[in-house]
């Protein structure tokens, strides 16, 4: 059904009528391509790690260094593109953990109701009462900053959104005619959950995941900005902004270009997510 919505002519036609969604798709594809191809398309791939060239440190943007250089002479453009690799990997892994973790209890809570619903949704309320950024900060602060810890910490506080979403949808769907019909012919609960209800949650899930790609990138950059994300010398957009922020207004190009880098990625996923929401007509 989803494939139909995308690749069947009508879905794509509807999606492509919205110029903003198309622009978003262009940004997302560019972002993914730049992330994947960074080692081959950046002018100075060796600058992604602990490369030092004091002779060229703190250079403003020029023909040689499009986005300028950082404190120890590394090309900011190359590092932004390598930063994209980190952002992409991180957000995909976070969602790969958080989505199943949230979907399963949400399905069960919406379908079975009763005490399981009460307990699950109370736990969700508790998790949502404290900003996930703050919780992730604390976990990384206590366990130590690294890419893996940042991913696990964000994922651990991201699943409740999916539980809540799936709970709301399932609660509505379980009263639909086809679910009742399946129950009448004696289908197992398992069959109904997996074959009847879950497929109908996919449009909402997909939209939410697209939008969340942008929010996870934001949270990860925020961790990096506060020095609790990925460790140096790995290029990370948030920590690059923080490095430049200490030398404002002199080193304006670091926050400006790394900031634009985040903006492009986040904007792209946001626009595509909005387009999907209109196309699939779902609420998330």
């Amino acid at each position: 059904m989803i494939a139909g919505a995308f690749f069947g002519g009508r879905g794509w036609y509807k999606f492509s009528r919205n110029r903003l969604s198309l622009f978003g798709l262009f940004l997302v594809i560019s972002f993914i391509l730049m992330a994947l191809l960074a080692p081959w398309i950046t002018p100075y791939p060796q600058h992604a790690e602990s490369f030092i060239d004091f002779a060229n440190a703190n250079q403003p943007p020029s023909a040689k260094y499009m986005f300028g250089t950082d404190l120890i002479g590394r090309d900011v453009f190359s590092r932004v593109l390598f930063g994209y690799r980190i952002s992409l990997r991180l957000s995909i892994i976070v969602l790969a953990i958080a989505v199943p973790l949230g979907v399963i209890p949400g399905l069960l809570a919406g379908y079975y109701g009763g005490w399981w619903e009460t307990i699950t949704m109370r736990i969700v309320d508790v998790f949502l009462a404290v900003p996930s950024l703050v919780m992730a900060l604390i976990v990384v602060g206590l366990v130590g900053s690294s890419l893996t810890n940042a991913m696990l910490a964000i994922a651990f506080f991201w699943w409740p959104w999916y539980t809540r979403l799936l709970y709301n949808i399932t609660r509505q769907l379980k009263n639909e005619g086809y679910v009742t019909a399946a129950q009448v012919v004696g289908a197992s609960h398992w069959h109904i959950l997996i074959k009847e209800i879950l497929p109908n949650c996919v449009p909402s899930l997909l939209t939410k995941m697209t939008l969340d790609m942008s929010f996870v990138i934001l949270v990860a950059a925020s961790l990096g900005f506060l020095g609790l994300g990925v460790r140096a010398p790995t290029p990370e957009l948030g920590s690059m902004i923080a490095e430049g922020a200490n030398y404002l207004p002199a080193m304006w190009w670091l926050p400006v270009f790394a900031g634009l880098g985040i903006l492009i990625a986040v904007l792209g996923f946001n626009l595509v997510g909005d387009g999907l929401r209109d196309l699939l007509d779902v609420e998330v």
Partner: protein
Amino acid sequence: MLRRYIIRRSIAALITLFGVSVLIFFLARVMPGDPAMIALGETATLEQIANYRERLGLNEPLLVQYVVYITSVIHGDLGDSLYTHGAVLDDLAHTFPATLELILFSTVLMITIGIPLGVLAGRFRDGFIDNFTRVFSLLGVVTPSFVWALFLMLVFAFYLDVLPAQGRLSEGVEPPAFVTGLYLVDSIVAGDWATFRDASAHIVMPGTALAMASVGQTTRMTRANVGESFDKTYIEFARAYGFKGFRTAAVYALRPALIPVLTIMGLDIAIKFGSAFLVETVFSWPGMARYGVQVILFKDLNAIVGTVTIIGFFFIVINLIVDIVVSFVDPRIRLGALAQ
């Protein structure tokens, strides 16, 4: 009816609050890393660590530790901070008003900019105002708060040099006499306009940086809802009665559109607290969020637990109030909740 609804929601809020305390407590205890070792540093001898554990009751079973902890929280004791060496509750009491002022200021911006813009855009759909609003609100939502903060700082503090970049007041300016802890309010109460001007100049940039995302969100939401209610028959009816455009927009289309915005405002508080961690760091705003960042970097467990408890408490109370206000505006909600 309304009273029963309020009682039910309050009980649910209390349970959530209890859950938050459990979550934070166990998170702080279960995390790898011995709290005693963290507190005493890596040079501490085994004997010192054993003494410290004994003194703080860290050798008791977790459940006992939790009961001790929650009892002292109820008595208003959040323990001592390793970072400031003072009582955590005092630290939070000193820093909370600054954060509250920032969040209230940005909420005011969110309402006074977001809602009118959204109504305008919804009224003149696909016109110039609508397109401008769309881009503006999108940029608000997708730009991280700390990027807004640095961008504003670069432009208004460094290039134009019209706004101060750091803190709540200029050096040499005395804070107004304590009434609410909010400098804007307290300076008005004291009738001290010089301080009021100074405090306003300081809060503009951090407040705006914090507000951008929610202004964008509110605008988009109001636009969508107002746009929808313009298609409803009661708007046509109002028009048929000869009410002018402004009145139909402001009164009949806006009221039903406000309910989701109110709900968002409650949930938005959590996001604002999160963003405040970044914005306060950028502007050296002496609030609770910056304190939070510092104690996290210092691994100061008592202060971390205290800060999160206050944030969770504040979030739950605000949402309780929002729910009650919403049910006041829209009786279907409280009746629906009771019918369940």
